[in-house]
Every structure is written in C-alpha cells, then in structure tokens.
C-alpha cells in the first residue's frame, strides 16, 4: 500500500510534502521522494494534491494488487480518478464534488 512519485513529471512544488499526514514525503534535488513506502497509510492526499499527476497510488501485492496505478485529477467541479492497468488500458471514474454518497 503506497504511492510512487514519477520523477520525470515532478516539478518540485512541494505540495505533496506539505499535506502528507505522516511527513513521509520530502524534496531532494528538486524532486519529491518518499522516506519508506511501508509507512504510507494510503490516504491519497498527495495524489490529489499533485498538480502534475506525478504521484500514483497502488495496491501492494500483499493486499491483492495487480499492478494498477491510481491517479487523481482535481478539477473545480469533479475529482477525476484515473486507473491505469498494466495492459495499457485505463478506466476513469468522475466524482461530482456537489453530490453526496448515495450509500
């Protein structure tokens, strides 16, 4: 259970390092880096905070993960969750910020 920073996309804004509730992310040589992937709670605060979609979240193998990557695009009206699968396909789930959970 953790997040992965794609270094080539990271612009070093530090947004993720600011919001991580565990102080797990920090900047080194202008790029975000995680101290220890085992310490991630999986809250996805950093995934949502990243303006460049440079951080994805993945289910660790011990939790039944199958190599997928979960990104989030934050727009004013929706939070767009993008799941990319190992075969190159992707799936999107758009959550309307003005709509409450039905359940």
């Amino acid at each position, binding site marked *: *259970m*953790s997040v992965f920073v794609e270094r080539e996309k990271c612009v070093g804004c530090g947004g993720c390092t*600011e*919001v*991580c*509730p*565990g*102080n797990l992310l*920090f900047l*080194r040589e202008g790029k975000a*880096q995680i*101290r*220890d*992937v*085992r*310490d*991630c*709670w*999986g*809250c*996805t*605060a950093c995934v949502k905070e990243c303006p460049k979609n440079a951080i994805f*979240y*993945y*289910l*660790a*193998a*011990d*939790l*039944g*993960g*199958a190599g*997928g990557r*979960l990104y989030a695009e934050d727009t004013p009206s929706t*939070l767009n*969750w993008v*799941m990319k*699968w190992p075969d190159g396909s992707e*799936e999107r*789930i758009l*959550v309307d*910020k*003005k*709509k*409450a*959970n*039905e*359940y």
Partner: protein
Amino acid sequence: MKTLTKQADILIIGGGAAGCYAAITLAEKHPGLSVILADKANIKRSGCLAAGVNALNAYITPGHTPMDYVRYAEKDAEGIVRGDLLLSLAEGFNRVTEKLEQLGLVILKNPDGSYRTRGNRNIKINGENIKPLLAEAATRSKNVMVLNHVNMVDYLQEDGAVSGAWGIDVREERMVFIAASAVICATGGAAGLYLPNHPGSSRHKMWYSPFNTGAGYAMGLRAGAEMTTFEMRFIALRCKGTIAPTGTLAQGIGAAQVNARGEAYQTAYGNTTSERLFAVVSENLAGRGPCYLKTSGITQEEQESLEKAYLNMAPAQTMRWCETKLEPRYYDVEVEGTEPYVVGGHTGSGYWVDEKRQTTLKGLFAAGDVAGGAPQKYVTGALVEGEIAADAAAEFAKDRKTPVLPAETVERKKEWAMHFLQGTSAGANVASRSCADTSPSMGAAAPGHLWPSEKLPVYDTDSLEDAMQQAMDEYAGGIKTSYRYTEAGLFQANAHIERIERLSDFLRARDFYGLMKIFELKDRLMVSRALIAHMSARKETRWHSFAENLDHPGKDAAYEKYVNSRLEDGKIKILFRPLVKEGDTA
C-alpha cells in the same frame, strides 16, 4: 539547537476534527484570545480524516432525541459510559452538522430540503473534503496561528497547572516551546500498538491513522493525568485487505453478514459493535470462515454508486474491485477484524474529564478521540467536544496570567531531546543541515553517524517498534490469539514493554524526523503499558473481542464501574470509580 518560543492564551495540540473545531469556536466566540494550533503534519489532511469520511454517523434524526443516542451508546458499551458526557455531545450533533454544511460540506437531502438519513443515526454526505474545509476555516481565523509540522512532545507545568507544551518542528529542525494559559489536547487515539493485519510492505494499511500514536494519552500520563477505560479496546470490522469501511455496505445497501456456507449468523451473537466483530472471530474459529458482506445481487447502478462512495473515503476498495474484477454485484465482500486500537471516539478510552472537558490537571482540557467516557462519538461528537473544550479553556484562560517559561526548563528539555541526536551528524550540527536522510532512524550500519561503531546502539526505532507490536500481539490479545488474553500473558507483555522502554532511551536519530519517530515509539510504549494494566484490572469479559479475558470469561456485576489509571513514580496505578449517569457530575 534552533528554538522557537511562543506565547498564547490557548494552545491546541492536534488539528484533526476536534482541534480544528476548537480553533473555529475560539475564533467565533472568543476573538479576544490568542490561539496557537500545533499539528505534527499539515491540518489540511492531518488526523484520521485524511482520506475523507463516508457518512456522519452521529446525528439525531427526526423522531429521535439526544437521550435515545445516549441509550444506544450505553447499550453498545454494556453500560460503561459517562452519561453526562454523552448527553452533552448528543445535544450538539445537529448544531455542528449545520455548521459543517455552512463551511461547504455536501449533505444528501430529500426533495423537501431535509437531510436524507441512513438508518437511525446517520446522514449521507460527500466527506472527501471534510478536512480541507475544517482546516480552511481554522486557518482564516484572525486570532488563530497554525503551526504545521510541529509535533508536541510533553506538557509544561507551573504552580500546579499546565502552562504550555514543548515539541519539535520536523520541517525547520528546531525545538518549539509554547507558553499558554490553557491547553486543549486533541491529538487523537493510538494506532500501531499491535502487530497490524499486514505487517510487511503494507504495515501502515490500517483502520486508524498510523500517525495517531497515542501522544496525548502518553503526555497526559507522564504529567500525572488520570485516564479511563483503556481496556475497552476498539477493533474495527473491515473489508479484507483494504481495511475499508463496512458500514457503507452493511447499512448503506443492507448487505447481510454471511459465513462461507452462506449462512446469516449475526443474530446468534447479538448486534453490538463488539458482538459483530466477535461473530466473525467465532465463525472463523469454528471453521465456517471466511465471512462476507453479501453484496452479490446488487444492481450495476448500485455498484457504480459504491465505487464513487469508496473513492470519497477509502480509494483502495474501489481500486481493488476494478483491479481484481471481483465486482461486488457478483462477489460478496470478505470482512476481517483489524488489530486493536485505543480510541475514545469509538469506545470509552481516554482522559478522565469533567463536563467541561477539563482533565484532572488544572488548565488542561481534552476533546475528540483522546477524551474518554463517551463512545460512539464519531466526527460530529469530536466537533461538539472541541466546542465544549474551547469554551471552557477560554473561561479558564481569561482569569490566568500567561505563564512565562523559566530558562532553566527550556535548557533541560533541550538537553533531553539532544541526547537522542548525540553521536550523529544531526547532533553535531543541527542548524546547518538542510536535507533529511531517507531512513528515519539510525541503526548500527546507517550512514550519518559520527560515533565509532562500538558506541552505537544495537537497535533502531523500527526494530523496537516491531518488538513492541509482537509482544502486544502475542500476549495482550492481538490478531494472533483472536483478541483473547490471559493474565499470565499480560504479565509477559508488560515485561516486554518495560524492557523495550528501557532500550528506547538508547535510540539515536540523525534528523528531526527520526527524533519524532523515537518520541512516537516512546508514546506507544507508555500507552501499551497503561493498556495492559487496565486489561489486567478488569477481571471479567464485558465486551467480547474488545476485552476477551480468558481467565474471566463472563460478565461480572462487580465491574459495573470505571477502571481508571494514573502514572505514579513511574508505575501505573489503577483506581476504580463509580458510574456517572446523565444529570450526575463526575
């Protein structure tokens, strides 16, 4: 070493739901008082609501009264609650809900504008942004200064009252001293005491925030405060693997609990929170596991709604459904129990407080998961408690001159913190370091140390944390023993915890993050030791699984009382107190 010294009328420690709401209350009702809100991370996403929350689980729905809620919580906890505290929270649930809506929280409504309810006590929301909304309101308050990434370590005391606290600024690598006329502790509960469900690469995939380390309990104990009901542990029943909430499935779509044979078993066990967990544990032990929430048969639309709902609070679950193709409309969702936690928002564990949430230490107030006596508090209860504590702290602060920190105290605390950095590059030159090393703690082979190998400690913080979690798991009713324990086992657990506590004094950190990890471990050890004492003191089994004492498997009327504790001369001293009903005072 760099230091930051501040003064305020009120210091709030911890900016989760309760802490933020205390700050908002002080801004609105007591604008003349200066307030500092210190949080170990950034209040935008700190605490247990980082990912969001699926529903507001404590709301007085039409046709019900606050007393109904008190009765529900009392029954669920088999009578060990503070009726006075519960009633004061229940009376405020709907008030703070309205306030949340004003702050921007989206709440599901009926065509007539009333809130749509889920069961008797819940309302449906989009809780993804609940924390940013609370943080924004706290931050824009003129009289509130927010100190992010400042981890408070211990209270300061003067003339028999709490007079502030000291801590470390993880970002700026400096020590922080805050003098305050009143302090509100809102640090949350304790996770990470027990070996988690997935101790390997997913060791932090747990129900409660792994960053809630029981700091407030430990600080209180070390300062002499009285704690209550630690032995009522909380163990969550969650979706297998992702540890995502089950309420959305059980209450939201009405999914029944079934065992591997497809039998609905719940009615055989009762239906309190602990009995629902106990049912799963028992079915598994009887060879009828795994257990599931029966979701098969739901519609495609229902499934899509569920996927969105989980993204708003526990994205892992949606990811798992999509990734494994085990769609809930075809496959039932497996459930499992988590490792145990100490958390006053769900059970009765925490500071012993009066109606105004003042602890047994003058000038110290508590709210949220760190305050005891009021289970089933949930988010709204934490907010109400933040409000009550804020009003009381304001009243107290008005009549007190802001304390001054004696220079000698500051030096003593600095020296103590410095000793954990000795022999490392951090200790040699804290101020000049700009970039943290990747590994939090030192260990014998780690770079960044200056001492010769023979002087280095054998253990690092991680290895002592492993040792603590293993001892608790094996001997103090962890997952390994299906949450059951014996007094002989508890005795072993205590011996291990005391040994690890002694070893923890030799730990060394090579940056402030590592220093924080050492303090977190020490806090967890303190809480574990108190928890063991509480579990040993309640010689009955009042709550299955939460406190399953194999030496005393039944309920005993003699224990219709609170088990409380204080730290005296380094030892946990247990005391019992009679039950307090609504309308009474403690």
